[in-house]
């Protein structure tokens, strides 16, 4: 177990390091010299040289990178165009997105898992066809369009829910949930479709496994066989799916937040690009990459706890 843990953490650290290099180089590839931006109207070569020297921009790229990495590791992501600390802005915006993502995962699980179980248990019956078709529709539907349709129906037409905006949970819990219900539904449907398909296929293979046959042979009621024996093993795969879907979730969050005007991390990303605020963009992209790597590492570790066979197999490769 120790070796496995070390290998996974080591791999994650390498990925994080490579990602940080990519982000650093990406921002350096952006048009526009930071010194020009800082010097504003002043185009005097001497002044520019002084600015470059002051900010270390005249040093070789690797030296600049090491310095930048050192600051980043201390939580200093620089200052954006409004002279606010980027890390501060991210810390303010991130909880909103995390709440949205959390609600979306709950929606996805609440729809996807029961639908997958029913489809597998009632294989080739009408319930299976309804669930599989639903999942196919969920996969094919553009979610930002679904968002527009939900807004026009529930907010514009029925006036049941607010069309856009956000209030904090601490300020007004009911209002907060009302504002996040539609966005969470939009984000959750895509996830539920993927979960349902995965759940169905892994339940089908569990239901055909020997230990399920043994459980049935022991005379256990079908309900116990399905919920205790088959489901427990299938649920393990669900943890990986949530990890793999993190990338899609991050992409989805950016769009969904922009449609529902939720001032979260996704909207911050779009603001950074629209305002050409490269320090902010750099911080946002770095945090999103780190979030992805950390979630997937946790998923891998959780998976190995839930499924001992992985540790053994992992040691062999």
């Amino acid at each position, binding site marked *: 177990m120790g070796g496995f843990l070390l290998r996974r953490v080591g*791999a994650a650290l*390498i*990925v*994080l390091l*490579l*990602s940080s290099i*990519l982000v650093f180089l*990406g921002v350096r*590839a*952006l*048009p526009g010299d930071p010194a020009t931006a800082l010097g504003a109207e002043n185009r005097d070569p001497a002044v520019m040289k002084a600015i470059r020297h002051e900010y270390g921009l005249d040093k070789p790229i690797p030296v600049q990178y090491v310095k930048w990495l050192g600051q980043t590791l201390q939580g200093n992501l620089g200052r954006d165009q409004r002279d606010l600390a980027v890390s501060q802005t991210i810390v303010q915006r991130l909880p909103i997105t995390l709440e949205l993502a959390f609600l979306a995962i709950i929606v996805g699980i609440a729809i996807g898992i029961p639908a997958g179980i029913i489809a597998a248990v009632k294989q080739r019956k009408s319930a299976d066809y309804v669930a599989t078709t639903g999942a*196919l*529709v969920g*996969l*094919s*539907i*553009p*979610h*930002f*369009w679904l968002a*527009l*349709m939900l*807004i*026009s129906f529930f907010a*514009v037409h029925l006036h049941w829910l607010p069309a856009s905006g956000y209030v904090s949970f601490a300020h007004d819990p009911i209002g907060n949930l009302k504002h996040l219900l539609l966005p969470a539904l939009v984000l959750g449907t895509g996830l539920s479709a993927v979960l349902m398909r995965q759940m169905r296929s892994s339940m089908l293979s569990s239901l055909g496994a020997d230990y399920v046959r043994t459980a049935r042979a022991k005379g256990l009621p079908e309900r116990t066989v399905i919920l205790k024996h088959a489901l427990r093993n299938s649920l393990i795969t669900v943890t990986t799916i949530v990890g793999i879907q993190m*990338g*899609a979730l*991050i*992409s989805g969050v*950016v*769009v969904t937040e*922009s*449609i529902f005007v939720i001032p979260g991390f996704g909207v911050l*990303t*779009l603001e950074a*690009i629209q305002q*050409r605020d*490269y320090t902010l*963009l750099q911080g946002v*992209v770095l945090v*999103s*990459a*780190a979030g*992805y*790597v950390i979630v997937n590492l946790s998923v891998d570790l959780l998976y190995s706890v839930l499924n001992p066979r992985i540790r053994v197999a992992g040691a062999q490769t």
Partner: protein
Amino acid sequence: MSYADTSVAVELSSRARRRRLIRKRFLRRPFAVIGLAIALTFIIVAIFAPWIAPYHPETMDLNAILAHPSSKHLLGTDELGRDVFSRLVWGARASIFAGVFATLLATVIAVPIGLVAGYYRGWIDPVIARLTDVLLAFPFLIIAVGLAAILGPSLRNATIALCLGAIPGLIRVARGETLSLREEDYVRAAVANGASDVRILGKHIFPNMLPTVIVQMTVTIPAAIIGEAVLSFLGLGVQSPQTSWGVMLSDAKDYLTTAPRLSVYPGLAIFFCSLSFNLFGDGLRDVLDPRTTR
């Protein structure tokens, strides 16, 4: 070398037989056939857009702003009096272009990488695995945001971002297939015969992993089509007044209360287009899955 020749002949005829079997099994799945038919229709519409669209997509008719569907304008007009049907037809171009090209390009890049990683293992495999992980750590939207910042927003750059987003999945599929195929008897036989690595990879492993790669491509295309729409919707892809389904939705969202139909048509187009590829892909997967072939 006569021995090798007969083996190739036997292999070919069995491959031809298998292909015929697959076609027969595929045609027995109505949803997959319908999916293929609709997908092909979209592709044909995209190719022949100038001949199918009754109007130029950017021609404005200021006497018919937000007009309802009529014989003159099949699906009505938008806020600038542009023919919605014509814009939808031209929009298919951007979507199909982005979806198909991003997927093709990603396949051409990813499959050789996956082949090398899976076949040689050793130090190259973990190196490729980590690089794939790095690519995965940047969701396609984040890559697209970065590319739009560096290169400017356009359909081409959106397609590159979608391609980069599709590469990791395809590498993993190709690598996984190579890992299992290299243990097959016919590959071992080829190794024992002294065949070169290039020949083994190109003649024995690649053709046999093709079905799985094609299935992965058919699920990547609809994802990329939706991805293009998302990027254009956010202003990171096709730029107005040029048309794409995402641009149309982006324009239409301001008219949700007054003219909701403007949002309905492009959304349905994206939906049916990606649904058709998904139906085709699902059918193909079932047909090619060896567990259901037996």
